[in-house]
């Protein structure tokens, strides 16, 4: 702060609390209340970055979210560093470390600046026209292009910060806490509406907050003083929520809005830990009031990008709010009255203003007169045509404008300065309005797009609605708000307002130069380095639509999303093409309004909460017994239970053998279970399954196959008839939700006449499945009073039973081909029942087995797994399950599709078994099957769907789908692998116990 750039009497900066921070490794100091930008400026640091393409030196240009140049890397920690952060938005905190981006070795000496000398060679979109030779060199070119592109660096370690979400429902949401927003908030709150006011700054008040100027008074007070009192009154409302440091990021249809609240970004480094960094508010508002204000426009002239060139209103904010002088000898360049406010502020603070260059012929508004009174020189009907100074502006060149404004004429005046404020008028922030689907209209008089029609319940008030004069802002905001909320707040009637009114307007999108256009660099998009010349080049080359020009020149596609450049791009296009600006349309403003952290969008849905984890009632036992788990949908299922040093193969071999030799036990609780009741339950099953159900006896179970309407297998499972009108259906684990939803769909929409009720009971029951030759003995120990004789309790039947006085259902069904039982008991007793079975089975070496063994055992029997052996292209006939298609039923879901010309072909891919010639060779699931490998192209006939080494058969077995497979039994085929060919023979799908003797063993 050597140069004494800080004003001492200031209300907003706490000059008693000094904050140290680092910029490019150098330790500097600022105060509480500073932004990084204001602190840098107070340290006389202007050069903060290099531009994207030409690596030109760039300085801080604005004081808000539209900043194109001062985007810095914050933090050095590999997990917490943040690229592309706007110095104008980040509040200074103790420990902040910032560094320049896109320059090497340093921002002061950047090798990449050599690009500036090549700039004639690399106009907009040059890359489409070159780098094509030699053809295979693009990779190399691209390597260098990529290296030089990009801005900051991504973190390389996981983020340690926490993010959060909140839903918020309110009557009225007001976006923007400037004078309009504050009046609207008070109006809404006073009328008992549940109101939320958000603002992206750390305090409310907008620009009026520091507007202390004789030309702008309300009820005889400076406008800032009047507003301050208004803000104080807001505290009295319980129904008003105020959120500062909260940026409205996206405005979606149905008044669904996303706002990001910054909670720790402003805190000292040591205070940030273990707190939520940012919170995303998901807001559903009945009504939305947009009061987002306006942005100042730059002016477009040769070399308008040098460090030290600011938007004039930013210079005003730096001096009035932050107490920082952007320079000692400041020149201003304008086409409207705003720069005069800056001149007065500077003058009041003792900063000398060289002159105001104004493109207008002359104007006599109150504020201009006041500036004249102060003795500040005004160059009327003049333009800055060039600037000088490499790393900081040191001089401007001024010339008179011709009458039509297209040429610079007369003598060139050089004016020394260390700062230039430019003002090209104001652009209402209509971004949110258009994001929400609103249509814009164009006001010719001052070249602004304004909110027009919207389908949503919303209004825009204040300068974002095109009101730029204080009296109009107040009057119109109040009226619009009252009308919109259908209330009558008369607090703001009869306010006495003094406001300097702008009388004359003039606009030139591209200011003339004394040089040919081709030799100038009038920047439009500062960050992407696109100039007015680039726009004109695009137009010459036939790119007409604004979207084409934007994409061809990349104007408006930088991290500021064209906030500063869009209007001028449109203006220059319209001017060049000779069309009216209003007719040209705008580009679409897409969300987010300002870049939104991924972490905030994701919230707490990371790590453990990335996705739901579902667990069975027996889960803890599996964990305790060292099971490995498989993800099946959201479920965790026990996959296998390795003992000591067993690998998966060894464990599965042991489990599989035990299940067939003596007894195995499986947790089948994840299967979908649907309780079906109603007088038409049987008819319903007839329609959803391929087979017939009406004649199923009470107490019996039946396997069913469900198709999609396109005839392809969808799901399968066993359904049990519990009583006349009562069934329990089981589905696959992954299919449970979809099957229920599909059946509800048919019931409610196609067959409402059926008296059927479906209720999911998946979670109510734990399912313990015990199988193997000793399963009966084990069950008889668990449920001693149940008659387990084949006669009383045959295969495919069920019994109600009690275990320790708890009701359960026991099904004698088998997915392994072994004699087996499934006990369905309410989940609270699932684990205990399981343990009881394990205890009872100890003497029979009962072995818990997981899904892998289950898959192996069923494959030995040729049972399919929907989703593994089927892939949405298999019909029941393809699966060689013709028997399950009822010939008698008139209709069922998918039936008609089975008779289409392609589905009835006999040479479709069909399910078969495969045996490798070498019984030790295990096929890879997914491997393709061919009949010969010598002919090109190789015709693929099918693929392996399931493959295992069967310990019970002591050979490898596989299921596969094979073209015309039914007729190819006994034939030799080849499974060609990358490094070898495996010879196989086509077989039946059932490898073990074809006669089903084991079921009753």
């Amino acid at each position: 702060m050597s140069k004494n750039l800080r004003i001492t009497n200031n209300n907003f900066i706490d000059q008693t609390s000094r904050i140290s921070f680092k910029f490019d490794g150098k330790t500097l100091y600022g105060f509480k209340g500073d932004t990084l930008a204001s602190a840098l400026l107070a340290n006389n640091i202007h050069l903060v970055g290099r531009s994207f393409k030409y690596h030109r030196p760039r300085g801080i240009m604005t004081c808000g979210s539209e900043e194109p140049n001062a985007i810095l890397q914050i933090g050095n920690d590999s997990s917490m560093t943040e690229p592309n952060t706007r110095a104008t938005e980040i509040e200074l905190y103790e420990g902040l470390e910032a560094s320049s981006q896109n320059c090497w070795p340093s921002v002061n000496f950047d090798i990449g600046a050599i690009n500036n000398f090549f700039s004639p060679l690399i106009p907009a979109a040059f890359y489409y026209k070159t780098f094509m030779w030699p053809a295979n060199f693009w990779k190399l070119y691209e390597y260098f292009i990529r290296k030089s592109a990009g801005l900051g660096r991504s973190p390389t370690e996981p983020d340690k910060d926490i993010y959060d979400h909140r839903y918020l429902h309110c009557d009225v949401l007001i976006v923007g806490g400037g004078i309009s927003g504050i009046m609207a908030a008070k109006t809404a709150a006073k009328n008992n509406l549940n109101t939320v006011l958000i603002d992206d700054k750390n305090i409310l008040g907008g620009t009026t907050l520091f507007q202390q100027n004789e030309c702008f008074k309300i009820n005889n007070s400076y406008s800032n003083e009047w507003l301050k009192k208004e803000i104080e009154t807001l505290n009295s409302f319980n129904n008003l929520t105020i959120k500062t440091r909260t940026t409205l990021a996206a405005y979606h249809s149905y008044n669904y809005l996303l706002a990001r609240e910054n909670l720790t970004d402003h805190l000292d480094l040591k205070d940030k830990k273990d707190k939520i960094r940012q919170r995303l508010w998901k807001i559903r508002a009945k009504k939305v009031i947009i009061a987002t204000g306006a942005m100042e426009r730059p002016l477009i002239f040769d070399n308008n990008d040098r460090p030290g060139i600011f938007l004039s209103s930013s210079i005003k904010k730096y001096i009035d709010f932050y107490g920082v002088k952007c320079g000692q000898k400041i020149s201003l360049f304008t086409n409207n009255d705003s720069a005069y406010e800056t001149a007065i502020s500077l003058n009041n603070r003792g900063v000398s203003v060289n002159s105001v260059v104004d493109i207008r012929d002359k104007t006599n508004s109150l504020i201009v007169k006041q500036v004249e009174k102060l003795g500040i020189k005004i160059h009327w009907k003049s333009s800055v045509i060039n600037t000088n100074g490499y790393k900081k502006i040191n001089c401007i060149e001024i010339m008179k404008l011709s009458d039509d404004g297209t040429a610079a004429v007369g003598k060139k005046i050089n004016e020394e300065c260390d700062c230039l404020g430019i003002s090209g008028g104001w652009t209402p922030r209509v971004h949110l309005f258009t994001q929400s689907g609103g249509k814009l209209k164009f006001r010719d008089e001052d070249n602004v797009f304004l909110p027009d029609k919207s389908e949503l319940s919303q209004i825009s008030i204040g300068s974002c609605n095109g009101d730029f004069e204080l009296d109009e802002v107040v009057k119109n905001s109040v009226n619009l708000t009252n009308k919109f909320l259908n209330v009558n707040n008369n607090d703001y009637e009869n306010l006495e307002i003094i406001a300097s009114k702008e009388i004359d307007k003039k606009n030139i999108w591209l200011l003339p130069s004394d040089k040919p256009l081709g030799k100038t660099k009038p920047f439009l998009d500062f960050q992407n380095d696109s100039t007015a010349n680039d726009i004109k080049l695009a137009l010459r080359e036939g790119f007409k639509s604004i979207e084409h020009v934007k994409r061809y020149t990349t104007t408006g596609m930088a991290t500021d999303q064209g906030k500063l450049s869009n209007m001028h791009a449109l203006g220059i296009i319209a001017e060049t093409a000779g069309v009216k600006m209003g007719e040209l349309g705008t580009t679409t403003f897409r969300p987010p309004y300002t870049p939104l952290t991924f972490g905030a969008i994701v919230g707490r849905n990371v790590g453990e909460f990335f996705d739901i984890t579902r667990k069975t009632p027996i889960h803890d036992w599996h964990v305790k017994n060292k099971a490995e788990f498989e993800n099946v949908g959201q479920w965790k299922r026990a996959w296998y239970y390795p003992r000591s040093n067993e690998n998966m193969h060894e464990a599965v071999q042991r489990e599989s053998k035990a299940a067939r030799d003596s007894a195995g036990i499986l947790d089948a609780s994840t299967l979908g279970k649907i309780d079906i009741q109603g007088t038409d339950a049987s008819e319903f099953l007839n329609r959803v399954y391929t087979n017939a159900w009406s004649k199923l006896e009470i107490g019996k179970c039946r396997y069913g196959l469900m198709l999609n309407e396109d005839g392809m297998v969808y799901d399968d499972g066993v359904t049990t008839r519990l009583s006349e009108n009562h069934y329990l259906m089981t589905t696959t684990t992954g299919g449970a939700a979809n099957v229920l939803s599909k059946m509800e769909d048919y019931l409610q929409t196609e067959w409402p006449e059926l008296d059927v009720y479906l209720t999911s009971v998946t979670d109510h029951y734990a399912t313990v499945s015990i199988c193997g030759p000793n399963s009966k003995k084990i069950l008889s120990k668990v449920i001693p009073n149940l008659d387990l004789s084949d006669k009383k309790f045959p295969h495919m039947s069920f019994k109600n039973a009690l275990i320790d006085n708890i009701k359960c259902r026991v099904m004698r069904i088998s997915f392994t081909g072994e004699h087996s039982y499934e006990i369905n008991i309410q989940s609270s007793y699932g684990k205990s029942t399981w343990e009881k079975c394990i205890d009872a089975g100890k003497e029979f070496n009962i072995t818990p087995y997981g899904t892998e063994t289950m898959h192996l055992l069923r494959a030995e029997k040729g049972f399919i797994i929907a989703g593994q052996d089927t892939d949405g292209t298999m019909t029941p006939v393809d699966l060689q399950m013709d028997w399950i298609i009822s010939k008698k039923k008139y209709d069922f879901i998918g039936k008609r599709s089975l008779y289409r010309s392609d589905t009835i072909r006999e040479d479709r891919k069909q399910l078969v078994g495969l045996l490798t010639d070498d019984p030790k060779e295990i096929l890879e699931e997914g491997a393709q099957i061919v009949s010969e490998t010598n002919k090109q192209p190789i015709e693929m006939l099918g693929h392996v769907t399931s493959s295992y080494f069967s310990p019970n058969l002591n050979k490898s077995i596989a299921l596969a789908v094979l073209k015309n497979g039914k007729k190819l039994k006994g034939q030799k085929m080849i499974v060609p692998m990358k490094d070898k060919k495996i010879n196989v023979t086509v077989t039946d799908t059932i490898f073990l116990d074809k006669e089903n003797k084991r079921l009753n063993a």
Partner: protein
Amino acid sequence: MFLINCPYCGERDQSEFSAGGEAHIERPKQPTELSDDQWAEFLFMRKNIKGIQYERWNHTHGCRKWFNMVRDTSNDKIHAVYKMGEKPPVK
């Protein structure tokens, strides 16, 4: 995110619902009588309207009821909801 007025539960966030495609495509009562072409018409062919569309929605995470909606697919504006079996409101 739409705000959908479930005819049974009232206004709810879109995330509670799932979309079920074009409405009023009745499943043929006698599919076996249909030619392959006619069956394909039912199975796959859709109007895919840009403009006012009648469509099915399910309040999946609420009352689990299916209902119909009239929505303009060109701007996503929902014009009406009505229960299954009820007559669609006239355009």
